[in-house]
């Protein structure tokens, strides 16, 4: 079918790709752009391993046509960082709390939690669980993930307070 050049804004950079209408976003992100941090799990929108942010909102890249994401702002795990190059506070908190085991679900979890913290800087454990409900982790039992997210939220609040005071 018809090949076309589509322009994506991915992790803040404008990038072109030759795609066909039936290409899924996850395949374009992984195979054309080489951003393999996004994982394919169930392929049916249940596990959340393929979660990316489109215009700041978590979506399943395995159920999204790439062509439908053209022109919108896509964030993958490779685009998650703190300012220039350092780890995002969520990533640091995941390391500090040992919130990853095999790590396959971690990119998707981090992106879902990034969207949560952007919308709600002071989430309760119930808010975290609700926002996590589309990301399945078969290793950790979620306790350390929830602890890490709450800790990251606290660190971000503290930083914002200091930033406001300065």
């Amino acid at each position, binding site marked *: 079918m018809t090949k076309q050049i589509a322009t994506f804004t991915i992790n803040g950079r404008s990038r072109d790709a030759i795609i066909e209408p039936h290409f*899924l976003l996850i395949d374009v992100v992984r195979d054309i752009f080489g951003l393999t941090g996004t994982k394919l799990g169930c392929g049916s*929108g249940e596990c959340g391993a393929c*979660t990316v942010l489109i215009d700041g*909102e978590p979506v399943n890249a395995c159920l999204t046509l790439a062509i*439908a994401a053209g022109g919108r702002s896509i964030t993958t795990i490779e685009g998650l960082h703190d300012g220039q190059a350092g780890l995002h506070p969520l990533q640091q908190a995941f390391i500090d709390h040992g919130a990853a085991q095999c790590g396959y679900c971690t990119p998707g979890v981090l992106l879902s939690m990034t969207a949560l913290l952007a919308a709600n800087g002071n989430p309760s454990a119930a808010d975290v669980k609700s926002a996590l*409900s589309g990301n399945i982790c078969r290793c950790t039992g979620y306790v350390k993930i929830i602890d890490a997210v709450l800790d990251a939220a606290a660190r971000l609040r503290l930083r914002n307070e200091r930033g406001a005071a300065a």
Partner: protein
Amino acid sequence: MGRVLQPFAYFEPSSLTEAIALVGAPDTRILAGGSDLILRMRRGEARPSRVVSLAKVTGLDWLAVSSAGDLEIGALATLSRVRQLVAASHQWGAFQDALDQLTPPQVHNTGTVVGNICAAVPYYDLPTALFALGAKPRIVGAEGERLLPLADFYVAAGTTALRRDELVASIIVPPSPVNAGSAFAKILKAARRASDVHKVNAAARLVIDAENGSIGEAAIVIGSCGLRPWRAPDAEALLIGAIAGEGVFEAAAVAAADAVQPLTDVPWVEAARRGFVRALVGDILNLAAQRARQHDGSAA
């Protein structure tokens, strides 16, 4: 690349007229959020040779409450936007319950209410809730526009009354009077055998006289127990005119359970299904009545 979906011709009309002209061709599917269609295409259950995306059609992301109080949800309004508005409106408790229980969260950001309705999947939740609330899809086609109650919209599993050159532009949910209340609930479990009952959902809406507590209007809708959601008129008849209370709700729940048509020839499966319906209907009638008395149809 592209190893999962089979190729198709892709159309992105920019107006409703253009879209209607495109959807009539054979072997065409309409794409809104894609959370149902793309999944079906991945599984090979749908193999359209043409896909018409509504993404660029102007006016379909409409979402508003009219001056008459109707909630109109355009075909591109995502579940997350609708959920926000419904939660703030405190009117459509059953709809709010169903949206709150819909997972995963990622689907809220892409999936649409109209897409969920049009998929005509017998075990989806929003059709059951919206049926109880009297919602009507607004169907547009080459021959004009029509409003069809959900009762007439579903023909069978996966099939709607949409003609080939028609599409659903929006769905309209009527306003709720102050003494109305509604609720939705579901039972979900792992199906260990093909015949297992893996899900039952139900929604109810009651209008209760604030003076004497009698029930003026009642709707009970059962989903996942047949090829489309259905009303339980015998159970509703027990409620109309009665004073709202647990006794009459229990009687209605029993009547609704008795109305369930068997889907298998396994007696214990059918007994379990009726048991779930009875429990759910009892619960949602109590909750709907509580909301009607609080003059607040919401789940809050």
